[in-house]
């Protein structure tokens, strides 16, 4: 296996994902298989090749003027929130 259980634990933590005991062996195996599968790329000579920045030649990320274009719709948006109080998103206490 190219990845150990400890590797997957660390990746899961970085990704903020809980991985259960039952899931762990499956991910160790399948993530190792994927890492092995993409290892083929290391053998390709890419000297002097610039990494692709955009699928279309000459296109670049457009910027817009810094102007207010949206109206306040927070009530509508917050209808999808798990917990809201006084128009604020409620999460477990983070400051003691």
């Amino acid at each position: 296996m190219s990845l150990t259980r400890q590797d997957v634990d660390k990746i899961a933590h970085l990704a903020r994902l809980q991985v259960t005991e039952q899931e762990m062996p499956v991910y160790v195996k399948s993530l190792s298989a994927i890492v092995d599968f993409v290892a083929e790329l290391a053998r390709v000579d890419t000297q002097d090749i610039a990494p692709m920045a955009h699928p279309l030649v000459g296109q670049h990320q457009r910027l817009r003027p810094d102007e207010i274009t949206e109206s306040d719709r927070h009530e509508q948006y917050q209808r999808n929130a798990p917990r809201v109080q006084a128009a604020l998103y409620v999460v477990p206490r983070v400051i003691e």
Partner: protein
Amino acid sequence: MHTLSIGELAQKLAAKQISSLELTDHFLERLSRLNPALNAVITPTVDLARAQAAAADRRRSAGESGPLLGIPLIHKDIFCTEGVRTSCGSRMLDNFVSPYDATVVSRLRCAGAVMLGKSNMDEFAMGSSNETSYYGPVKNPWDLTKVPGGSSGGSAAALAAGLAAFATGTDTGGSIRQPAALTGVVGFKPTYGRVSRYGMIAFASSLDQAGTFTRSAQDAAIVLQAMAGFDPKDSTSVDRPVPDYQGLLGAPLKGLKIGLLQEFFEGLDERNGALIHAALAEFRKLGATTCEVSLPNLPLSVPTYYVVAPAECSSNLSRFDGVRFGYRCEDPKDLMDLYKRSRGEGFGAEVKRRIMTGTYVLSAGYYDAYYLKAQKIRQLITDDFRRAFESVDMLIGPTTPTPAFAIGAKVDDPITMYLNDIYTIGANLAGLPAVSLPCGFVDSLPMGLQLVGPHFAEDSLLNAAHGYQQVTDWHRRTPAGYA
């Protein structure tokens, strides 16, 4: 009525032989009767559909006309629809009611198209069989024990079963073309940036593109006309005029140069290869010339994709944090527990696998070896295509290596599943337009051929596809029981 093209339905509507409400009720009746066995549509919008149909009929009475006015469609559930649940096939968004419409949705509504419902899909568009959906797999109407392909499997199956006149989809690595091939319909993926991504839930932003499922190339031209065009709300949308796709159809194919993609034929099932060669013979009869073309870096497409796409996915899906919208776990003990359990419980196995793959390839010490390397190889693949298009107008090959496979056959082996997209991923990496067309049958299941063109060659791809469909009738076949 459910096997007619958009053009034929539009004629009936214009001649007042039928109203949009009658047409909509016809499809809604089929949907309620046939969908339970297929699981293609996860959110029917019956009342909304009837209201939109009545509105289309009023617009027509007021003198308005248009090729999509009153035509019923199904949207992939990746497109945000205001006031309607937009789940993206995930438990994470099972309770998400979008507060706004995707640009694709609003454009088609403005054109008068009637939304019948939202289609099932692989969770967050990650899958090639529609088996990763939180709502269960979609069945292929040609054989209910087979997958319809994915990730837009619900849209493909719904159209093949005659539950709508057309459907929308998205294609990040083949998610329109592969299911179109496996269900015997036309799947069109436009050039990157041609159709707005605004309101289309992001998977891999440098690859995602919206497109169409239709019964013919002509129908694809009609729908693409309404969908395509500049949108200031999408920073990668291309500001470039949209040609009159339908008006350009019918141009003779004499002199068209089609390149046969050698790399796509290595190890290909003989019966599949024979179908592509038969299609080539038809193109030659229409005056096209054909030659063999090699893209030496193309075989690197799948590993390149499985670095780039998961990397972008892990970044895009970090927004699902259990705080602002979507699923939240019960009784989180602290903020970290809230994040980890909300995401761990809200996402399915394949989505978590891709997030972790992406997190790994982007993590400190690995970025250069994986992501940067993959983006360099992506450039090599793109350069291969560019060189090929210096000598040919378009490329041809199979859409998939095999016909539809059995439900459950590949779920335990991600690499085998990923290789389903071996012929489709190249066009996404290079941002190219491509279309899958029905071209015959293997083991009584439909197969597709794929045409890939240079950037913004939508018009010539549609014209070539239309020419082929004038002399063949594979696209008119209907699965038994759905005629």
